[in-house]
């Protein structure tokens, strides 16, 4: 292990107990009686345990940012809490050099009855700032959060966005040597999120070592140079942020392989005439997929069971990112393709030429309705995941098909480049005409 590292996480194991960790008087008595009569026999514990972290290791040199990604329950937050000193590992060593500030939950120490300003002082102290330090940065903190007008109002009357902005703003001004951030940037509007990312980059430039736990792969890539992937409590990958994202997407698809098309996941309508037996993603050769490339064709195969014949059915497929708003909704009605569903089992296939979206996990659902009566015959929840890998081509929402052209001055060799320049000239010319 590198001795220059500011943060060392060395072969850490952490075990948790599932269920109640406390004994009632009754079970306490029973176990102590058992111990008296059978002093040598080990009383079997009814408690179940699991390992949240298994032999996980990483190290971060000063002034670097490390992203930690992984599916839910992979041990990300546990790792952060161990770093912060909130939890103690069962095995292994953790070392953090310098002042540490952990932003595990925004505004964790806020008290609703205190005003914004009072909470800044309280929360600042919780995060390890001195009163003088807070007083010096007070205006900056308030300005960053953008809540100047409400600073003397009890935070219980704040909107959740204001609450979160204030919480992050305080933590962003702690000036720690090591900053731990856990999935807190999902709050606030887009502008504030952008400001948070800028602030984190600023801190890294100032030499702060950052550990960033997130599900947002774009944010992670824009802040961190390196990342590790946790899966089942183990660090399955450690390397550059981009490679880590690829590894993560594959790990995700593996973990979803087993229950991609579980029929029980569908939201059943009462006495629905149409049942979804399965929703599968296939490649061109008809093989089932759990992840695909953004630039390659995909087929979505629906296996439906109908209890009655529907003459004019509309089949719709929707795709969402992170269970938020719909990204795209495709239905056969818009395409004016009449679909006739017969009694019995049948298959409907949607062919998609490419899915030009940024890498990540997307969730699908299926709906069927009767065009004549307007009655909904099938409506599943968004429980069909597909992992799409865009090879790190873009961040954001869309991965548009693109290429870069670089034209040197006085170089008329690149035909396409010329076209671009002509177009620009043309536009400028037209604007001049308008102006005159």
């Amino acid at each position: 292990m590198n001795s220059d590292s500011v943060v060392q996480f060395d072969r850490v194991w952490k075990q948790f107990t599932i269920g109640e960790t406390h004994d009632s008087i009754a079970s306490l008595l029973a176990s102590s009686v058992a111990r008296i009569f059978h002093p040598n026999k080990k009383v079997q514990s009814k408690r179940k345990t699991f390992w949240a972290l298994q032999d996980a290791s990483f190290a971060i040199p000063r002034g670097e940012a490390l992203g930690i990604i992984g599916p839910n329950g992979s041990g990300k937050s546990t790792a952060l809490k161990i770093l912060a000193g909130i939890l103690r590992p069962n095995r292994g060593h953790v070392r953090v050099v310098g002042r540490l500030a952990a932003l595990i939950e925004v505004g964790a120490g806020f008290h609703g009855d205190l005003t914004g300003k009072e909470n800044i002082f309280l929360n600042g102290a919780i995060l390890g700032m001195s009163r003088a330090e807070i007083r010096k940065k007070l205006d900056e903190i308030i300005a960053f959060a953008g809540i100047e007008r409400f600073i003397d109002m009890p935070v219980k009357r704040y909107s959740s966005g204001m609450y979160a902005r204030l919480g992050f703003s305080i933590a962003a001004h702690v000036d720690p040597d090591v900053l731990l951030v856990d999935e807190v940037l999902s709050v606030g509007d887009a502008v504030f999120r952008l400001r948070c990312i800028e602030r984190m980059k600023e801190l890294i430039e100032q030499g702060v070592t950052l550990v960033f736990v997130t599900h947002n792969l774009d944010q992670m890539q824009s802040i961190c140079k390196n990342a590790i992937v946790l899966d089942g409590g183990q660090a399955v990958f450690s390397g550059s942020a981009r490679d880590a994202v690829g590894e993560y997407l594959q790990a995700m698809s593996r973990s979803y392989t087993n229950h991609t098309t579980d029929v029980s996941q569908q939201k059943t309508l009462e006495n629905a005439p149409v049942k979804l037996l399965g929703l599968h993603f296939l490649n061109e050769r008809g093989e089932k997929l759990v992840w695909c490339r953004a630039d390659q064709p995909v087929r979505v195969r629906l296996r439906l069971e109908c209890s009655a014949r529907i003459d004019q059915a509309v089949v719709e497929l929707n795709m969402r990112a992170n269970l938020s708003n719909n990204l795209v909704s495709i239905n056969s009605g818009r395409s004016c393709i009449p679909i006739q569903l017969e009694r019995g089992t049948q298959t409907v296939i949607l062919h998609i030429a490419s899915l030009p979206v940024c890498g990540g996990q997307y969730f699908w659902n299926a709906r069927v309705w009767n065009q004549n009566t307007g009655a909904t015959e099938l409506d599943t929840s968004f429980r069909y995941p597909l992992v799409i890998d865009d090879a790190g081509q873009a961040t954001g929402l869309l991965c548009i098909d693109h290429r870069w052209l670089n034209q040197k001055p006085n170089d008329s060799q690149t035909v396409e480049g010329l076209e671009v320049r002509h177009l620009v000239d043309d536009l400028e010319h037209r604007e001049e005409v308008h102006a005159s």
Partner: protein
Amino acid sequence: MSELSLTTASGDLLRYRQLLLSLTWRDIRIRYKQSALGIGWAILLPLSMMLIFTFVFTRAIDASKVMDVAMPYALYAYLGLVPWTFFSQALGSAVNSLVANRNLVTKVYFPREVFPLACIGSSFVDFCVATSVLVVLIGYYHVRGIYAFTPHATLLFLPIVMLVQVTMMIGIGLILSMANLFYRDVRQLFTVTIQLLMFVSGVVVPLPQDGSLLARVVGLNPIVPVIGAYRDCVIHGRLPEVGGFVYACVFAAFVLLFGWICFRKAAYRFAECI
């Protein structure tokens, strides 16, 4: 294990003294926020208790024959009630302090001792406020000629009495808050116990001195010499009786040490067991 040593612990606490002050200030602030009387309650609570007990023991039933308190009963009661309110109120909030701050215990790291300590700190402020009424009360009796008061040099001994009381309270507070985190029964038990304890600590009723078994058992209560010491120093102008007071000192030191070591040993499990 180095994490367990109390010297590291005190170093930790010293670094976080700012936080301790902030949390103390928060507790005071919250207790009297949205309340018309505000900090006035710090005076009103022991004062109303004093009036109730004075009414019960001097008007409702005449207990002056059995209770020889050698001073006006109201003064006797108030001198007992002020340190007692400090004791019971501080521990009453300390017992729940870790559980009430679950959010902080599971989300932020700092020495967990600050929670019960802040409870004791904020109650100490109330204690000081309530003491001011004592001055008024003594002045009243003096002016009316009911009870002549002469300030004694023993008043200077009061800080030591307070120190012993606070030490004892920190130890008990650490144990109670930790125990309540693992078993919520502790809070309920505490509520009952503190009621009983009030009547066997010489707060409003003098303790039996007849050498009976009951008197000997009650005499083991380490709070008795502390409460008595306040009256000795303020009114009687004498130092507390050595045997009893040393016993209280030893108990306080022991309970602090024992409580703190236990607390430190269990602290790493707080976040998962809360």
